[in-house]
């Protein structure tokens, strides 16, 4: 199953990459792309749109955050799932926001069930003005281990670039 998905995803990714050469925008004008870059070899960057991520196994949870009022429902894919889908199992991952805020961590930090690459909040796509289009969140309420300064600093919003250094 996973192999099939992976195969599809790779072909899809390649397809998307060729498409991004022509136009770096997603079809949906509100949907901003996520750019995947590989620093250490010649692999092309990959631009993903929310529609691309929809093809991956979905995950969701409800939690409060330090930065929002009330319980929020987040939907998206585990970052670990995404990294695995593109064949990244180790190395350093650098996450960057539109305001150039950046954090770096080992790939294994983003385990499944931990870091969720959310692109829908309370059923709606997230706008750039409200922490969109991508926000890396943890289920802070479910696990005290997620309520640490390190996790809070990794909880990056307005995410638009991911760099993988191997």
């Amino acid at each position, binding site marked *: 199953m996973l192999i099939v998905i992976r195969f599809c995803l790779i072909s899809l990714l390649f397809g998307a990459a060729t498409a991004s050469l022509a136009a770096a925008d997603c079809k949906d004008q509100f949907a901003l792309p996520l750019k995947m870059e590989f620093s250490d070899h010649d692999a092309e960057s990959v631009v993903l749109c929310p529609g691309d991520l929809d093809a991956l196994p979905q995950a969701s949870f409800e939690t*409060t955050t*330090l*930065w*929002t*009022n009330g319980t929020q429902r987040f939907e998206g894919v585990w970052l670990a799932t995404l990294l695995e889908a593109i064949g990244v199992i180790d190395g350093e991952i650098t996450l960057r*926001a*539109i*305001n150039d*805020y950046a954090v770096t961590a080992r790939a294994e930090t983003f385990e499944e069930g931990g870091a969720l690459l959310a692109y829908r909040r309370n059923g709606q796509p997230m*706008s*750039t*003005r*409200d*922490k969109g289009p991508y926000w890396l969140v943890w289920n802070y309420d479910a696990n005290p281990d997620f*309520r*640490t*300064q390190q996790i*809070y600093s990794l909880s990056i*919003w*307005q995410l638009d670039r991911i760099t993988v250094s191997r």
Partner: protein
Amino acid sequence: MLSRFRFKRFSRRPFVLSILTGLAAVFLLGCAFLTLQVYFRLDDLTAARSDNMQFTISRLEVEHVKLQSAAENLNNADPTATDTFRRRFDAFYNRVNTLLASPLYTGALSNSGMAQDLRSIRTSLDEMTALVDQPDDVLRPARDALLAGIAPLSETIQSISWASLGIAAERSEAERAALARTLLQLAVISLLLIAALVALSFQLWTLFRRYRQRALENRTTLNRLSTILNTSLDHIVVIDPDSRIIEANAAADVAFALSGPDGQRKPITDVLLRRNDAGTTEPVSGARLIEACRNGPNRCAKVLARRADGLLFPVEMSAALAYQSGREVCVCYLRDISQRLAAQKEIEAARDRALAGEQAQARFLGMISHEMRTPLNGILGVVDLLDETVLNVEQRRYLRILQSAGQQLLTQINDALDLTQAGNGRVTLDRGVFDLDALLEEAISGLIAQAGARDTQIELRIPDGPLGLVEGDRARVLQVLVNLLSNAVKFTDGGQVTVEATRPEPAQPWVEVQVADTGRGIPDEDLPHIFNDFVRAGNIAGGDVPGSGLGLGIVRTLVQAMGGRVGVESIEGEGSLFWVRLPLDVASENSVRAPAPSPTGGDVPPLRVLVVEDNDANRFVATQMLLKDGHRVSEARSGEEALRLTQDARFDLILMDIRMPGLDGLETARRIRTRPGPAQAARLIFLTAHIQTENYQEINDLNIEAILAKPLRRTVLRNVLAGRIGGVPPANSHTVDARVMEQLRDTLPATTLEALLARFTEEGDRFVDGLQKEMGKPSEVDISRVHKFAGSAATFGASRLQERLGQLEDALYQGDTRRVRQELAGLPKLWRDTRARLTGARDAA
């Protein structure tokens, strides 16, 4: 007391300990609580929920600056300028929104004007969004308008920044203070905890030292006790109710071989047995021991123990209850008493032997004395008779000596008899009333001659006046006084003997008589024994004083028998003082006065006496004696004559020889007794020359009063007439009287008896051998040898031999040669029989 005190002191310790432990626990809880608080506070600090406000505000400023710069770049030809501006706008807008929405900041914001400022910023931004969302060609020309909206925001942001700084400072101050307070509390509680722990440790240390000290003392005591128990010769075991031996000392372990090969001790039932009432033995169980000790420590000597080799030996057991590990146990001391019991038995046996020996000796003495007295009376009788014949001066002098010596011997034999009788507890008191003053006079008068011979005066003093009539045994009192006086006289030469009699307390029954002399006295070392039998004072110096040494022994025995006391004080060389205290009551008015027996025989009222005797001389002597005492006498020469005389005449008493030609004495007596007549109830006294050999059984049937040995003695006759002597010796006509032999075996040591018997058989053999030679000339047979051999035969109870020898002696005495031959002929065979029987009797022992 001491242990109770100790108990009190120690009992307070646990109280202190528990208090300290409680305190320590409380402090420990406090510490844990505070430590947790600190931990959570620190956790909060690490969580830093609010600490990034500063950062967020600073980001707000940065992002505002970037937005302003992106807006200024809108007039550039760069095609990405609009995109950049839009991203900067979104980032700034997002920051403002986040500050307003985040619960982290709401508290801080509401207390200041920051919320107001932020909301005004957002209002301005919301106004701009319409322009920002326009396409690039609309956006670019709106640059100035946008800048005009964006630039003034910096002032508001500045004021927010200042306000946030104040809030942050306040907050961190509060945090620090709270943390510091908690830490201080923690420190205090920790100090208290440490103090409590130190106090607790101190208490525990003190207790530890105290208990260690006690443990050491206990161990020392235990060691000492265990040494004592293990070195004890007694066997000590500790037994539980299931009969198991829990502990045992070394002595018990070895003696009973308690430890088996498997290391298990054998149960007490294998070791201890008890002799029950039925005489059998039964094992003693632990439960039974404990039950027996329930009412206090138990001692029992009826217990046996099984030694390692299986033999039983008697033990004395001492057992008591004790407690071990909360259950009752029994501590038993077992002592081997087999040696003690053996020693005890030996002592008892020795005592029994000594007592038996003493009794046998007394019996022997009594018997011998009695046997001696009879022939002696004969001798004295003959002497008396001789005295009445015509003698020359020299002969009379010899006769006097003979009389004196004979009398002395008789006295000693009588003493010995008295003593043995008294010693056997056979003193029977004959109470009567008598004149004590007269008795004293009489005692003294009897000894005046003897004293005079020694040039000694006897003085009687009765200081309180006459003592008068008293109640008591006259004869015994007289004997005591005479013995004391005779003793005093014997040991005093040319001195003074004083008799003083008093009644110290008039109302009391006691009379005290003191006999003091100025004689040689008694050495101190002899004083304690002076009243013992056969003891003679001054044995060394007094060799010249005659006497048996029995006198004072008799005094003591008689005085004790009467319930009185006797004592002596003496200074050697100056004299002695003997005193007796006798219970002699003052005679009451109506007491009958007992007549004092007259030594002359005058107390017997005149009797009509018939003397029946074939021998003229003997008949003459008897008649003369009786006539002199005032009796009326008729004579008969034979049995027939006697029968004739008694037919009509009445007689009070008949004196009859047993052996007479024709009708002998026995037959005559039988006829007198059976034939009705005036003499039928007369008193009957037999005379015989063979007092040892008569057929007493036959004589006894005749109801006679006495049987007297010939020759007759005056005093004996008088006593018989007065009724003071009587009785008939028991029958004895066996070859060898076994009873005599028995007596000898009881009396004499076996070796002595053996030697005596050997001597006797040797004497017999020699005598019989000698007789063979003398058969031809009977007149030459030595009468003294016959007599001596007869005496020996009597000693060993050879009755037939003694009888035959008596008859031989008789025949020799009478010069009857034919009878002598006749008697001699049977002797050798009789001797052989006797010897064989004697050996048999001896071996029967």
